[in-house]
């Protein structure tokens, strides 16, 4: 077993355990902290795939900006502890059964698909995850979507201010 496989399985187990802890935590602040750990594990996967730009952007944008926004809102609105009565148990059970059925269906589908059998990933070689090729592609082929996304940000900012000001 090579070092890449060991790292892959360790990061995967870490990501899935943290994702489950997001669900089972009663306190929303603990959920936010576990979700940050999930994002760090996913960034580790990006580094393992030599997508270095996306790894850093994932940490800066998700773990840095978005999760801080979540923490601010949770502290702002003073969420009470979940006082869920026990009759919610059936809803929880049905949700888990539905999600598990979804997972089983998709896994069975992947097992049957012929196009991906025996395909392997290029792990540490290749330059497409580095800044130089990504920047060239972004500002040559994708410059119009890039500019449109700035308009999207402007409208999101105006919308957030208008909604929050009322």
């Amino acid at each position, binding site marked *: 077993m090579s070092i890449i496989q060991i790292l892959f399985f360790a990061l995967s187990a870490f*990501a*899935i355990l943290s*994702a489950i802890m*997001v*669900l089972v935590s009663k306190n929303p602040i603990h959920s936010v902290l576990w*979700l940050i750990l999930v994002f760090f594990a*996913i960034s580790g*996967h*990006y580094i393992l*795939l030599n*997508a270095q*730009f*996306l790894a850093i952007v*994932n940490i800066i*944008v*998700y773990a840095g*900006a*978005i999760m801080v926004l*979540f923490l601010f*809102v*949770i502290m*702002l*609105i003073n*969420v009470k502890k979940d006082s*869920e009565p026990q009759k*919610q148990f059936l*809803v929880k059970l*049905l*949700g888990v059964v*539905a*999600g*598990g059925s*979804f997972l089983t269906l*998709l*896994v069975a589908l*992947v097992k049957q698909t012929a196009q*991906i059998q*025996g*395909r*392997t*990933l*290029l*792990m540490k*070689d290749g330059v*497409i*995850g580095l800044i130089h*090729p*990504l920047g060239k*592609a972004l500002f040559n082929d*994708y410059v119009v*979507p890039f500019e449109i*996304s700035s308009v*999207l*940000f402007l409208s*999101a900012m105006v*919308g*957030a201010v208008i*909604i*929050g000001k*009322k």
Partner: protein
Amino acid sequence: MPIQYYIYLCLALFSIGVIGVLTRRNAIVVFMCIELMLNAVNLLLVAFSKMFHGYALAQNATSTTGIDAQIFVFFIMVVAAAEVSVGLAIIVMMYRNTHSVDINFLNRLKN
């Protein structure tokens, strides 16, 4: 590394997000589970990009096949950031009106 491993990992993360959306009642936790699903899809896009890049690199040593997927991941992150800012503003406004973020109390838009 076979592509199936990455597909199974991303399916597991996505399903955990789905279960969270279905079972939790706190609107903020539901929102975080949506972020989890977005991240699972991002990881799958990067994995497929590296898969196709590996096969194109065997044909042509200077190929940049698969770079589109990484650009898409970048744009998904951009849209997710905009979505979170508006969504959290809506949650704060709902809390000001109803003094709760329990989605069982938010099932009607009127009043």
